[in-house]
């Protein structure tokens, strides 16, 4: 169980990126971490991984996250955490050396499935392919908790859909995924739980099964929680066109 207790993060003394976040994530869950830009999704993932300092506590099965259990977490990020000059095969060697739970068969299968060149340096690949390798490495590290931060930014819709399907197919019951994304409409059938962040705080936490019962999608839920006004755009446009009419009238 990944447990966050009263986790807060402040940048430059004044900007509160996270405020008193409490969250428990059980093994096997696929959690969508949702929210607008600047809501604190990336900060939350980086705090879990110990890449950022924070106030509060984050524990994994009751133990603080440190060198003893850090290998139980893996990370795929749109910022990319691979070595650009290395090939996927060289990454395989590096990961195998550092992570004893590395899943070699899964790596081979995923590389084959996505037809990725194993011996081409990652910097010579397209952004889409780089994203795929980034996610494959995170999936094959042998971690119990796989954290993903906008991993498919730059991939086409078919590719993303393939990935969701493959993920659902290969994940073992104890493997947990925490996926931060903007692509709300796509993850509806992928995630089992949606956690909504707003201004550094959790403002929504719901299972997709509950949403299904209510006949709602994740997107509907997020719109509701964010008090989304559907007529906002049309109002703004009519106001703008009204101003233009006034200007023309004055001339």
């Amino acid at each position, binding site marked *: 169980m990944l447990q966050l207790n009263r986790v807060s993060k402040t940048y430059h003394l004044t900007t509160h990126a996270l405020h008193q976040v409490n969250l428990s994530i059980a093994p096997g869950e696929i959690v969508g971490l949702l929210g607008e830009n600047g809501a604190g999704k990336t900060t939350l993932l980086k705090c879990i*991984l*110990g*890449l950022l300092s924070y106030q509060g506590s984050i524990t994994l099965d009751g133990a603080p996250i440190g*060198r*003893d259990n*850090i*290998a139980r*977490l893996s*990370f795929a*990020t749109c*910022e*990319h*955490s*691979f*070595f*650009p*000059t*290395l090939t996927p095969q060289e990454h395989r060697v*590096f990961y195998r050396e*550092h*992570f004893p739970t590395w899943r070699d068969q899964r790596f081979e299968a995923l590389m084959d499935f996505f037809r990725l060149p194993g011996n081409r340096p*990652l*910097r010579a690949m397209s952004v889409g392919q780089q994203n795929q390798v980034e996610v494959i490495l995170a999936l094959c590290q042998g971690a119990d908790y796989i954290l993903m931060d906008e991993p498919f930014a730059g991939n086409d819709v078919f590719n993303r859909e393939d990935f969701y399907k493959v993920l659902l197919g290969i994940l073992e019951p104890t493997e947990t995924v925490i996926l931060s994304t903007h692509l709300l409409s796509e993850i509806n059938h992928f995630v089992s739980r949606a956690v909504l962040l707003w201004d550094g705080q959790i403002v929504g936490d719901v299972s997709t099964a509950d949403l299904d019962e209510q006949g709602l999608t994740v997107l509907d839920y997020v719109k509701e929680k964010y008090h989304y006004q559907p007529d906002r755009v049309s109002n703004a446009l009519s106001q703008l066109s009204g101003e233009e009419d006034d200007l023309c009238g004055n001339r």
Partner: protein
Amino acid sequence: MKWKRYLPVEANATVLRRGFVALTAFSLVCSLSFFNAYARALPGIEQIAVSFPGVQMPPFSLLLGPSLYGFWVSALAMVPLAGYFWALHTRLSHSVYLMRRLPDRWELARRCLTLPVLAALFFLGLSLALWLLDFAIYWTVTPDRFLPSSLWEALWS
């Protein structure tokens, strides 16, 4: 190769080797200035001694001059090299995220610091060895009548 474990994953070993050789050569060339100064001072002092008996060789520190600065500059150059090694992990991607979450907490530090620290020690050690060699030459080759009376005076006066 095992020694590559002590370099950043993306470091170019060939470029580093060439750089190291270049810095060593630069330092050694700089150090030759002592021999130049000494080779000019010794015959000079012998000539002067004809007219001014009791004249002494200039002190060792004066002859040494900036001849060892090359080693110190090379040793100091290891500080930005360590910074460059760190920066390699944030260039084009953020592989620093991966390095920082490895189970071995020292992996990143080992890869960024080992070579700069060892190279700095090498340059400082070589500088010390050459200082001793230069002084040994000064002390043994210079005729006794031109040497200062004490070792300390020879070094610093």
